[in-house]
């Protein structure tokens, strides 16, 4: 275990930052360009986890446990959000027989 911790500590913090940045950007681009709602939801999860990773990394770097506590909170909220999001998605599918996001234009002014 100590070996693992040492290994993780061995990775410089800027690597974590770059990794999170890449993950977050993939998430954003996925949300913006994909039309399948399931993929969009997955991309949102990806963005959340990119943030989580950054938090955990800085927490270790700064020796401050608060960041990791935040991560737990975010995971709980993300789980709830995923449950609600998927439930909504199922209802949409039952009503429109499709998970295409561009079908949702009922709010058109």
């Amino acid at each position, binding site marked *: 275990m100590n070996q693992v911790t040492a290994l993780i500590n061995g990775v410089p913090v800027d690597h974590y930052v770059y990794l999170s940045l890449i993950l977050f950007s993939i998430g954003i681009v996925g949300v913006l360009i994909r039309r399948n709602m399931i993929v969009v939801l997955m991309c949102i999860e990806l963005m959340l986890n990119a943030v989580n990773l950054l938090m955990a990394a800085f927490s270790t770097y700064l020796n401050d446990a608060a960041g990791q506590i935040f991560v737990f909170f975010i995971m709980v909220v993300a789980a709830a959000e995923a449950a609600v999001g998927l439930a909504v998605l199922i209802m949409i599918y039952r009503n429109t027989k499709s998970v295409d*996001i561009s079908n949702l*234009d009922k709010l*058109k*002014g």
Partner: protein
Amino acid sequence: MAQTIPYIVLLPLIGFVINGLFGSKLPKNFIGILGTLMVLIPFFLTIGLFMEIHSTGQPIQYTWFNWLTISEITLNIGFYIDQLSVWMMMIITGIGSVIHIYSAGYMHDDEGLHKFFAYLNLFIFSMLILIMGSSYLMMFFGWEGVGLCSYLLIGFWYKNKEYGYAARKAFVMNRIGDLGFLLAMFMIWNQFKSLDFVQILPNISNIDNSTITVIALLLFVGAVGKSAQLPLFTWLPDAMAGPTPVSALIHAATMVTAGIYLIIRSNAIFLSSELAQEVILVIALVTSLMSALIALQQNDIKKVLAYSTVSQLGLMFVALGVGAYDTALFHLTTHAFFKALLFLGAGSVIHAMGGEQDLRSMGGLKKYLPSTYWTFLIGTLAIIGFPLMSGFFSKDEILAKSFAYAPVVWGLVMAISILTAFYMLRLFYLTFFGDFKGTHHQKDHLHESPASMTIPLWILAILSLAGGLLNIPELFHGNHFLATWLSPVITGKVEAHHISHATEWILMGVTTIIILSILFYSYKKYAVNKAIAPSDDQVRGLNKTFANKFYIDDFYDNVIVEPVQFSSRIAHDYMEKSLIDRIVEGTGSLVKGIANLLRKTQNGNLEVYLLGMVVGAILIFLYNYWM
């Protein structure tokens, strides 16, 4: 007894609320009975008050509740019942009850019966506030209230446009008078820091004479509006558009006498200003004479009575002008009796004629409408001052008082009395004697009115017969009851003019002989020779001026109404349409245009929204980064 005072006011108000809110669902007979009871019960309560004041001789002051207090200004809803108020209250509730009974019959088939009774009760309420109020403010409240009811009832048959215009005319003309009243109140407040009668009237001598004169003249402007004197009298004849019971109650017996009440109540103010007294006298004489002349040539039965009312009100103001306040109240009382009777009789005739009001279509109604005939006869004799009828005593007193003031005034009043006899007898004979001149259909339809209409006629006829007993002059060994009764109210200094009994006998003899000879002349002309009123295009010369009401209405139309309407049209076309409308509509279309542009962004496409969100977040980030 003082605790009954709020109920006297409240009961008519309750009647108004019940009939006004739920009347359309109530049975018709119930509406009439409720409306009548809400006036009859106050009448009996008023008799109780009368008894009390009669035994104690003291006015009753009753403060009901505090209306509002703003720093040092305190306004109370309070009542001040003295000999004058209680007398007026008896007239209003008494004649009011009789006319309510009559209305139940007269208006029975009208779909707006509940509305009619609601308005009548509201009128009684307002009139009682006017009479009973303890301050000029309370009086003004009632004053406006009766104006409103008058408007509502003149325009009662609002589907007829002409009636609506008549109502509007009455309302506007009354507002002109009200402005005078209001200004007088401001001046009184400025002088006394109070509007209560008990604070003002005993202390009138503390302020300087010119201020009193201005206050008196402004109050008189109010009285002129309400009591239909020159130059504001033209609304009253038009007010005959309302149902006949309204004409009897509001436009003959009660509301139009509010101006006289106002002046008697403020006698301390008026008697301190000689100029105001003279102005009253001159305006009253001119009004009375003019309207009597106009009445000679009118062919509408109600119009004749309306001008007669203006003329008789003028006579009351003459009495006020010569300082005979008790005489004015006496004539007010007898006039309320016989003029209400004449109007109700005219209503009965109109009812029988199926809505026809033109004298030239009537004639010979004597045998079809016996009750109406006899009561109308009594009313006519009373108004022309036939010996020993009520009008004889009151008019004779005005004549005597004006002779004592100045023989020239006596001469004019005498001329007015002679004219009164002429036009009333003309009206009477054209209606009840001669040949019937209406259509066959109308002739078959002729019938006496139901008991609910004839009983009130008889009650008023008895009052018109015996009303003179209220104030028998010393000449007939009477005790001058009304004059004695009223004397505590007249606090101003009255200049005493006395004439000897011999002069009084001569004046009375002259009047009687003239009245009797006119009676004989008219009988000969209309009943025996069956003269008929000429049609409109046969009227020539001076008579034409009378028939056209001295062209006063045309004068007002040309000088006031037309220019005002012209400027309104200008304002409408140029100000309203091309300026204000464009600004308002421009604002609207500008907002609409911008909205049209912006709604394109609301295309409902989630991806676009998300993109917007991301771009926004990036922009905020960049902004924070660089700034």
